[in-house]
């Protein structure tokens, strides 16, 4: 069997052993069930409101949590093994750097996928059981798409984590770098876009502007979960309202966002001094 699977298997086992998978799943489950039932509490309503509302609320939760978790799951993937001496050892095995990196992605990706599926699946099941007048097929379709895009978003940030991990020489620097990536893509990017928009009173290339959203994987993820629902975007997403990015374009953008950093991480890993 390919060494990629052995590495993935080991990462997965590590994930179960140190309770990462359990912890992430529980966080996702608690928060998503909470949001499904109390998401509209601000409007004075308690209980399930509507599928689009729920998915959009869950997306705003996931967009903060998933990148953070993915970055912290994988920031030490390379630099950590280097510090422990196992990287030096592994590279003397019949195994290439590419296989090592892909094995890590597969293992960490399976952990992210599994926790997302179980955590958010819990809220799908709650809705199907307790909400009135709900079509189970629609719920499954909506949550299926959500879990798929959320897992992809997780993979993108795992790839970012590998870039950091292949680049820096110390674990503590990698942790700092991971935080920086999180701030940049989750907070600063949107603020900068909004700021530009407000400062120019919307006159700054209004036809180009929405495309800038594709430059941030978290915005792509949010767009995926807006398209197909009548839910209206808030903040920067409102700009993409009249643009008809289809699911095809958006998923392709996310996949490009996965491939690009994986390529960079691989390049950095090849050049990394031992």
């Amino acid at each position, binding site marked *: 069997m390919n060494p990629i699977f052995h590495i993935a298997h080991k990462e997965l086992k*590590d994930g179960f052993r140190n309770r990462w998978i359990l912890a992430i799943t529980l966080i996702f489950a608690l928060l998503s069930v909470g949001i499904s039932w109390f998401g509209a509490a601000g409007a004075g309503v308690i209980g399930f409101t509507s599928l689009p509302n729920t998915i959009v609320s869950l997306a705003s939760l996931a967009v903060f949590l998933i990148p953070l978790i993915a970055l912290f799951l994988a920031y030490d993937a390379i630099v950590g093994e280097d510090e422990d001496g196992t990287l030096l050892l592994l590279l*003397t095995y019949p195994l290439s750097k590419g296989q090592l990196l892909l094995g890590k992605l597969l293992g960490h990706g399976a952990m992210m996928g599994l926790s997302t599926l179980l955590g958010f699946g819990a809220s799908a099941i709650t809705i199907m059981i307790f909400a009135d007048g709900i079509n189970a097929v629609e719920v499954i379709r909506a949550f299926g798409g959500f879990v798929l895009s959320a897992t992809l978003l997780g993979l993108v940030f795992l790839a970012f984590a590998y870039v950091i991990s292949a680049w820096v020489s110390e674990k503590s620097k990698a942790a700092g770098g991971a935080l920086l990536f999180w701030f940049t893509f989750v907070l600063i990017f949107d603020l900068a876009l909004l700021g530009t928009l407000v400062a120019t009173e919307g006159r700054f290339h209004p036809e180009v502007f929405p495309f800038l959203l594709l430059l941030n994987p978290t915005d792509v993820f949010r767009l995926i979960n807006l398209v197909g629902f009548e839910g209206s975007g808030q903040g920067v997403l409102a700009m993409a309202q009249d643009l008809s990015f289809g699911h095809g374009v958006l998923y392709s953008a996310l996949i490009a966002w996965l491939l690009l950093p994986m390529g960079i991480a691989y390049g950095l890993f090849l050049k990394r001094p031992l």
Partner: protein
Amino acid sequence: MTLIRLDQVHKHFTNVHALRDLSLTLNPGEVLGLFGHNGAGKTTTMKLILGLEKPSQGLVEVLGQSPWRRQFSEQRHQIGFLPESVSFYPQLTGREVLHYFARLKKIDTAQADNLLERIGLAHAVNRKIKTYSKGMRQRLGLAQALLSQPRLLLLDEPTVGLDPIATQEFYGMVDELRDQGCGVILCSHVLPGVEKHINRAAILGQGRLRALGTLTELRAQANLPMTIRVSSALARPALQQQLEDLDVSSAGMRPINGHTLEWQSAPGNKMQILRRLARQQELDDIDIQEPSLESLYRHFVELATEVRP
């Protein structure tokens, strides 16, 4: 077949000349000790042999191939490596870790279990690595290196952190492997105790090979004096007088205690001195110490620094 052949190898890094003109070979069934201070080029030599670095100049051939090429991957099944200070995945058990490495080397996990038993870890296989002592971790590292019954074994500081008994057992295993035809490179700066287990020694200093050969060859080359110590029932002045009459002692005889004297002598006259001393009825004990690996090491490294300060 020669397992390792280095010929006039140079290795520069961006601003360091790590190795200059290094040539050495390793044959099956041979243990080569690689000695040198920190920064002498031991680690770089190991990395070149393992194909983790590419030589800047010269020839590196391991198992008949260039180790830094992609195609070398197939040969890696036949190489065992124990890195210096490796700490395995603390959350996994000893068995899980060894199974992981076995799978990566495409080796039956049952064989890994056998090895755990042989290495004396059978009682701890289901415990997490984080509970292991330094010695147990080192054993596990060695088990990992022995997984594929390697033709070539590289050991970097293998006995650091091992107690004397574990060290003995460790060298016992190295001897056994050598007898089976495995070629071993043993990198160490713990010199005492290694002598008996190596066939040849290579001494590195500042990226150059300072000396290479069997211990006998190195002793002859260094021509270091041996130390002779005799004790006797006679009082020291009488003993000293007797020895001087025998014409065995060179200058610098020094008393150890009231009945024991020690002096140094050129290595050539060992047998002559022994014969003369053996005829003396009054002597209780004779002890001849040939220069240890440590003094040889110091000799060759210091010699080099005198020539080029």
